[in-house]
């Protein structure tokens, strides 16, 4: 079964984002979904599927953010409802499965967090005592271990990653809603930033964000009657190596990106040569490098050479993370990538719009990745404007 060009993303919902004190997590879900429905030109009664990104424990006495509570706040009583708990990144694939089965006509996917103002969830939280006994906490350490092993396996390191951090920052500088819109970054700034968990410095790490994001998925047939240009799902792939980083032997590649990417490119019937821009999951700079390496943009160890000279920046030959990404725009899990690709293909990105405005190719096909836990889950989406 090939669902190439059969389903589309038809609306995007944003909220205030960055440091937004005084807001609950559920309020961001609610606002993002309402805005996405309005953006698509739909009514809440049209939406019959709801998928929430990752469950997080509630902060500060807030209600537990279940998908049921999200449905209640948004006036939805969907046929299908789901939320994952540990960063499996199959939200879009599940949405399309429900549409393909005829269970739903319009599925909304949403993400929300108030971690920045509500308290960093990684700090002082012990959820695995066997790891905590050795001082292993949070995601940065796992990616630091992966990056360290990669540095031992092929040519990579900060001289490669600086191009990713600085390149994405230049996109953020064009994006008024990016958390780092007003903050320039030089290579010197990158190297002067403190270590978090070595070999990862501060600017190798994604942002922590208050805010929400949502998008609406439906059939291309329905999309043709809606208000925006049709952004179709051309290819989908997923692969989940699953093993925890402590037992992984794939941390320096091939990660899940290899087989996930092969699946997506096979469905789309194209190769990396057909890609006009990329929105790559960037929890850390190294994640961008290993994902693009495993997708086949360059061979192992050739990343530094590939990323240099502004390749991924405004004006570059292969724009990457054109909103600023999670490193410099906002952390909205995989919706950072999917919504930016959708907005770019719809031509709605203003100063950062791919095409003449940024001296880049006008995009027809954009490659998106999503990745969860510590390189344990991966999904790939190829979008194109029909």
């Amino acid at each position, binding site marked *: 079964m090939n669902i190439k060009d059969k389903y589309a993303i038809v609306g995007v919902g944003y909220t205030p984002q960055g440091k937004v004190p005084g807001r609950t997590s559920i309020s961001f879900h609610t606002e993002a979904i309402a805005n996405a429905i309005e953006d698509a030109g739909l009514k809440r009664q049209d939406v019959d599927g709801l998928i929430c990104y990752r469950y997080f424990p509630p902060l500060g006495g807030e209600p537990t953010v279940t998908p049921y509570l999200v449905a209640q706040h948004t006036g939805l009583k969907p046929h299908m409802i789901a939320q994952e708990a540990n960063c499996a990144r199959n939200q879009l694939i599940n949405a399309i499965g429900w549409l393909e089965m005829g269970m739903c006509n319009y599925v909304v996917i949403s993400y929300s967090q108030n971690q920045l103002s509500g308290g960093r969830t*990684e*700090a*002082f939280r*012990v959820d695995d*005592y*066997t*790891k*905590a*006994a*050795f*001082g*292993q*906490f*949070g995601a940065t*350490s*796992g990616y*630091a*271990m*992966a990056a*360290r*092993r990669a*540095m*031992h396996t092929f040519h990579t390191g900060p001289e490669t990653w600086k191009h990713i951090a600085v390149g994405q920052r230049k996109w953020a500088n064009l994006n008024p809603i990016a958390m780092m819109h007003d903050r320039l970054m030089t290579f010197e700034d990158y190297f002067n930033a*403190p*270590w*978090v*968990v*070595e*070999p990862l410095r501060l600017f190798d790490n994604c942002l922590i964000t208050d805010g929400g994001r949502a998008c609406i998925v439906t059939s291309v047939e329905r999309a043709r009657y809606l208000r925006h240009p049709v952004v179709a799902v051309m290819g989908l792939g997923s692969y989940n190596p699953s093993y925890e*980083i*402590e*037992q*992984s*032997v794939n*941390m320096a590649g091939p990660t899940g990106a290899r087989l996930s990417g092969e699946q997506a490119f096979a469905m789309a019937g194209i190769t990396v040569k057909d890609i006009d821009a990329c929105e790559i999951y960037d929890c850390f700079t190294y994640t961008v490098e290993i994902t693009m390496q495993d997708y086949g943009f360059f061979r192992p160890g050739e990343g530094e050479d590939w990323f240099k000279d502004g390749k991924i920046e405004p004006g570059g030959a292969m724009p990457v993370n054109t909103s600023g990404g999670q490193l410099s725009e906002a952390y909205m899990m995989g919706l950072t990538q999917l919504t930016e690709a959708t907005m770019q293909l719809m031509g709605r990105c203003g100063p950062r719009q791919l095409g003449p405005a940024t001296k880049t190719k006008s995009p027809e096909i954009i490659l998106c990745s999503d990745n969860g836990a510590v390189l344990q889950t991966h999904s790939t989406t190829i979008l194109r404007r029909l």
Partner: protein
Amino acid sequence: MTYQKPLPKPTADDKFFWDGCKEHRLLFQKCSNCGVVRWPPSIICPACYSRATEISISSGKGKLYTFAVYHRAYHPGFASDLPYVTAVIELVEGPHILSNVVSSRIQDLKCDLPVEVIWEDITPEISLPKFRIVP
């Protein structure tokens, strides 16, 4: 001063491991059918699905597969250790386990250096297997 760091809470699956640590022995499950030595502990072999399991004693020798150098304390118990090193140890018997590399200069660490276990007795119930670079 009392010990400020979190301690393992042995489960039904890994109690034998922590009991072994008390005696300064690294114990792992070994599949009686295919011989795979596994970690974390499990009731079946993930390779061949055999339920038949024996316990094997590790030599405590292996390689530093990879490591991370913490420059921030995510838990107050580790604040006075900064910078400290968490590591994935590849034991010669096969399993990869999380631990710390201690008593080495951080700038001397490299992936694949040979390591050996050393023991830290924390409480009467818990001893932690840690590793040092083989001189």
